[in-house]
């Protein structure tokens, strides 16, 4: 355990990333104890109040307590990101291993689909999908929409990593020791890729959150949910900036910034673990 703490000292990015995300986590936990999340729904509290002792984050035009909105909305936004990110990297990993280990026709097909998918502007596809869904979206459906494209980039990058690992001496030795394809993939290659997969996962979560916020800001998200992106949508819809209701857009902006900075530093920190050459010397 002490070794882990000492490592954190040598990896400032990882430490900052973990700290930011932990702070966010604490905010949500403590917030839930201090505030009634039902007040995140419209018509719960007086409208357009600037920050005060009753309403530390102020209230918006539809009568939502903004602190309650932040406390309720942050986990929702993060959930979309995690579901989409995990799905993306999960599917991407499976496809990448199959393509890289077996090569041949399978590899060409998987690579081809991923490459074509990557050339199409992702946001456009998401908008089209979102618009085509009849009725309002739930948060989980939102996650799946984003996930549908989240596997493309991880497939390519993980495939490249596996391709290089595949040539290592220990793979040859494993083959001589009687191991078969799937065995080599899971027992020999996968463990060495875990740090890289972790970094890719965090990066995928980050992109997924960004994509979902983008859709929400355009009004294509789950209208009833108090997510961060939807809050920004209402900020735009009500011209909050022009009207001088500064507390309305400051809160979600700061939280979004914290989320992205935290995930970014976490990625950089994990990247350092994954790539020993980036490690600082003791």
């Amino acid at each position, binding site marked *: 355990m002490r070794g882990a703490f000492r490592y954190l000292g040598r990896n400032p990015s990882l430490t900052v990333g973990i700290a930011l995300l932990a702070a966010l986590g604490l905010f949500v936990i403590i917030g839930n104890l201090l505030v009634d999340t039902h007040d995140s729904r419209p018509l719960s509290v007086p409208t357009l109040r600037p920050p005060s002792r009753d309403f530390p984050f102020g209230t918006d035009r539809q009568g939502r307590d903004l602190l309650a909105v932040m406390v309720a909305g942050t986990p929702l936004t993060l959930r979309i990101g995690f579901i989409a990110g995990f799905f993306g990297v999960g599917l991407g990993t499976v496809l990448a291993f199959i393509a890289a280990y077996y090569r041949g026709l399978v590899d060409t097909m998987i690579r081809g689909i991923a490459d074509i998918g990557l050339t199409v502007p992702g946001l456009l596809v998401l908008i089209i999908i979102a618009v085509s869904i009849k009725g309002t979206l739930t948060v989980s459906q939102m996650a799946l929409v984003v996930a549908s494209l989240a596997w493309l980039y991880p497939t390519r990058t993980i495939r490249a990593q596996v391709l290089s690992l595949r040539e290592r001496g220990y793979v040859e030795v*494993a083959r001589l020791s*009687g191991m078969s394809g799937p065995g080599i993939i899971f027992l020999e290659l996968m463990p060495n890729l875990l740090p890289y997969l972790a970094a890719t996962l965090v990066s995928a979560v980050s992109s997924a959150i960004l994509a979902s916020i983008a859709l929400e800001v355009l009004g294509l998200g789950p209208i009833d949910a108090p997510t961060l992106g939807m809050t920004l949508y209402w900020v735009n819809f009500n011209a909050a900036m022009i009207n001088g209701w500064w507390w309305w857009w400051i809160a979600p902006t700061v939280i979004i910034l914290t989320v992205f900075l935290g995930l970014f530093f976490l990625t950089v920190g994990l990247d350092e673990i994954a790539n020993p050459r980036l490690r600082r010397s003791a």
Partner: protein
Amino acid sequence: MAPLIEAVDVSKRFAGGLGRESTLALAGLSLAIHAEKPSIIAVVGESGSGKTTLAHLLLGLAEPTGGEVRYRGSDLRKLKRDERLAFRRDVQAVFQDPYGVYNPFYRVDHVLATPVRRFRLAASRAQARELIGETLRAVGLRPEEILGRFPHQLSGGQRQRVMVARALLLKPKLIVADEPVSMVDASLRATILSSLRKLTDEHGISILYITHDLATAYQVSDTILVLYRAHVAEAGAVERVVTAPQHPYTQLLISAIPRAHVARDWLVQKDEAGRAPPAVIAAQGCCFADRCPLVTPVCLGASPALYRTEPRRAVACVQFRHHPALPAGDLGKVLAT
């Protein structure tokens, strides 16, 4: 009795790319290794001689573009599943790099436990531990110093010996050792090579010792194959080939080894190679013609056959064309102990 492993006129050509010629890694080579008479065969050559290609072909890690490699009479490419498993038990390998062959994620136990598990060499955990301990001791290592450690915690020599132990676990009939000591300190090489010699003398395991180091080949092996640019230059009993070399290339190789003597005669000898970038050698003609001090017009015309100059020696040089030519598949006879 079909030989354990046999190369029948195998050749390997790597296809060229855009505007590049294809490379001949190994010209037609025939070799037979019999399980009943264990011995150490050295394959000596520089980089590009084809020795590593030969190792990969015999191990089934690459496929020949010409000829075939047979395990107990059957073509390696056509082995059924259980035959393939038997092949893996009988033919093992030790590689050059004692770092890359270890998966950094696992302790070194993993590389020993995997074959035990895959080939069901032990009935229980306890039995497996015993077997592994015994095998480590057989290569001169103390299990308590090795097991439970990560690869980076062991020295290069220890890592390489663990690899020899791994190969030994399956009680193979043949171990292909590709430069097993070139990345190990000079003072530790002897120990590893001695344990290889012990494997042959005490456990009846044949070893194909692939190296560029003629001196260690001389010390540890019984017969030797000298390769030059994908061809066999000279082959035979190691005592004869090294003390009285007949092929000009073998003579060059031996004279090029610096000795720890007071006499300083090493630097002054000349060799014309390396003065110009490697040229594409004409397909016909002796592959050594451009560097040979004894070259004649005959050498440029056709690639020499292997001539049997002694019962246990074959040389591919036109100087000896008055000796009987050796049929392709009979190289094994010259190498038989």
